[in-house]
């Protein structure tokens, strides 16, 4: 067992000291605090120990909490996801890392067949967090850029969280760890260290409840419902639309995809009467379809225009810059779709 130092390293005391943190640091602080608060919480993943993980989210944790609580696993997504399930049966609260979220598909069977159905089958709760870096805009190619949320969105029994700000990231990872259900926690790698996202977080313990959307920007002419990196692209678009078109755009950041905060979506649509759904994931079978259908069912009379969506194209994510730029939603795509909606 490695030595346990009692002094928390500087890197995880930023919020206590009133210093701004990145989204990545916010997640690290959140996991750290939950591990201190609850000794049932432990971590597993590839290279997360001494090295602190491929993206350094777990940096310093093995030194501080010891190797039994921060376990470097073999490259075995099925193995450690299943092991997390077993530990959860025994009352533990495992947090496991997919080195890149793309590799979550290796554990798809374990997550969807075993973990998601456990409570329903009478085998008890599965308080597991499965987290990892996701998303594109980094030229990572087809296997280091995916947004696999839709593959799991269709699985009852799972919760899916995908934060866009440092404050939410910390509050949501803490909520996810405390949640008694399995939570898939996606972390957008393009947001991890963005200096613009640095913020000073509350010094005291706080959580952001799972299942509650957040109004990222107030507006009255149209609503953009979005999440993760697209919150920031939408914000850029909203600023352009305000300056160039005098449009007032409301942005709803879902934060949690499953369960979906239908009330927040409907409330905003009833106010602005126009809806644009923006997600980075591919289009067909994407979450936008579900959102549009719910609005259709419950707020049709309030709509002044068809619901539109801006998404990635229906292709695997490519590597080369011009292809990736074209494939992924860009700010100008959002501006264009919003203009169309506003002028409808």
């Amino acid at each position, binding site marked *: 067992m490695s030595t346990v130092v009692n002094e928390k390293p500087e890197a995880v005391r930023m919020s206590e000291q009133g210093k701004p943190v990145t989204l990545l640091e916010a997640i690290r602080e959140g996991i750290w605090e939950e591990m201190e608060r609850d000794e049932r919480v432990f971590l597993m993943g590839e290279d997360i120990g001494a090295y602190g993980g491929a993206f350094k989210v777990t940096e310093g944790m093995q030194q501080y909490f010891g190797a039994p609580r921060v376990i470097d696993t073999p490259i075995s997504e099925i193995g450690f996801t299943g092991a997390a399930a077993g530990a959860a049966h025994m009352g533990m609260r495992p947090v496991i890392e997919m080195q890149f979220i793309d590799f979550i598909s290796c554990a798809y069977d374990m997550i969807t067949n075993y973990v998601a159905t456990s409570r329903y089958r009478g085998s008890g709760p599965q308080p597991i967090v499965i987290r990892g870096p996701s998303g594109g805009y980094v030229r990572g190619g087809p*296997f280091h850029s995916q947004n696999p949320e839709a593959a799991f969105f269709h699985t009852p029994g799972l919760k899916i969280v995908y934060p866009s700000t440092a404050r939410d990231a910390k509050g949501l990872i803490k909520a996810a760890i405390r949640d008694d259900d399995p939570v898939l926690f996606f972390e957008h790698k393009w947001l991890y260290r963005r200096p613009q996202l640095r913020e000073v977080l509350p010094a005291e313990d706080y959580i952001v409840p799972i299942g509650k959307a957040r109004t990222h920007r107030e507006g009255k002419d149209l609503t953009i419902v979005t999440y993760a990196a697209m919150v920031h692209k939408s914000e850029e678009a909203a600023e352009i639309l305000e300056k160039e078109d005098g449009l007032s755009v409301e942005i709803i950041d879902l934060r949690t995809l499953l369960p979906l905060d239908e009330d927040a979506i409907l409330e905003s649509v009833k106010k602005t009467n126009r809806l644009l759904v923006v997600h980075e994931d591919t289009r067909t079978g994407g979450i936008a379809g579900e959102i549009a259908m719910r609005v259709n069912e419950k707020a049709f009379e309030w709509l002044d225009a068809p619901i539109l969506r801006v998404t990635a194209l229906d292709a695997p994510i490519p590597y080369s810059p011009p*292809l990736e730029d074209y494939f992924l939603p860009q700010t100008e795509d959002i501006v264009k779709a919003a203009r169309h909606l506003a002028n409808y």
Partner: protein
Amino acid sequence: MASKTKSPPAAAIPHGLTREQLLEMYRLVRLTRSLEEKLENLFRQSKVVGGLFRSLGQEGESVASAYALRRRTDGTGDMLSPLIRNLGSMITVGATPAEVVRQYMAKGDSPARGKELNIHFTDYQRGFIGQISPLGDLVPVMAGVTLTFKQRGQDRVGMVYIGDGATSTGAFHEGINFAAVQRCPLVVIVENNQWAYTTPTRLQTAAKSFVDKAPGYGVAAEKVDGNDMLAVYGAAKRAVDRARAGEGVTLIEVMTYRRKGHAQHDNQSYVDPAEIDRWAASNDPIDRFIVTLKENEWASADELRAIDERIDAELDATIAEAETSPLPEPEEALTDVYADGPVRAPWTRHTPADPTQA
């Protein structure tokens, strides 16, 4: 070259190799290392899109193992599927530096036309299938490739590479087990370079050695010094011959060492530098091969130098040419999703018409 006629008879070359073949192996391994060095320069100039993975210290086993395959260019030879550190294997079965450089630079005329990266590309004619990033997946895939050889009564063989780390995946177990049961003509090369990213082999498997796993699958096994090119060639050749003779799967554990970080961004903080230095100083596969070639008088210093010079000149020209290649057109992103034409971009993207106008 002048002394050729007068020199004393050279020691017999093992494994039925000829002097010409030894020189070819030397050219391939040298080319692999030089190409990676040039790629590293390009990476530093930000001309490589994405990451760069070196195989420094492992080039010998890549080249020597692939060299044991029947290499053809008409789609009738053996097949291999490499891992990220098997540039040498790819080059050996005929991938060209021009292709590799273009892949790394994400060019429109790269084999994957900008859709995929590094050595993830395929050519059935020359006999290689590109890997994908999720580790282990190509073991069952190559089981299927070799199953087909068997079903068709072809005497073709497959070779698949897997890292010590990736042997921990479910795909590896299922794949090798399937191939073993079906007695597929498959050679599984487990590259034990002692690290999987930052994880040492002892945290990957509790087995003392990967060859110990072979009896559990019911396959033959051999362990070999991976930085001794002739030894690797010998082991690979025996396994290939066994496979071709219908004797099924062989697992070869190749003992080697990853002298660079996992990729360029990895500073190897978790490795004892003395360990790397030891391998560099006394166990470099190319240095060892050169010594063997010279000591046995299978090649002269002049011959080797001439090969080196030719490689350098060729690579410089190749890179200069690749740099002028254009990046792909954006719409390339929509092609090859299906056989019957490109997928359509939604009207909100880049097309002037919208449905209300239609």
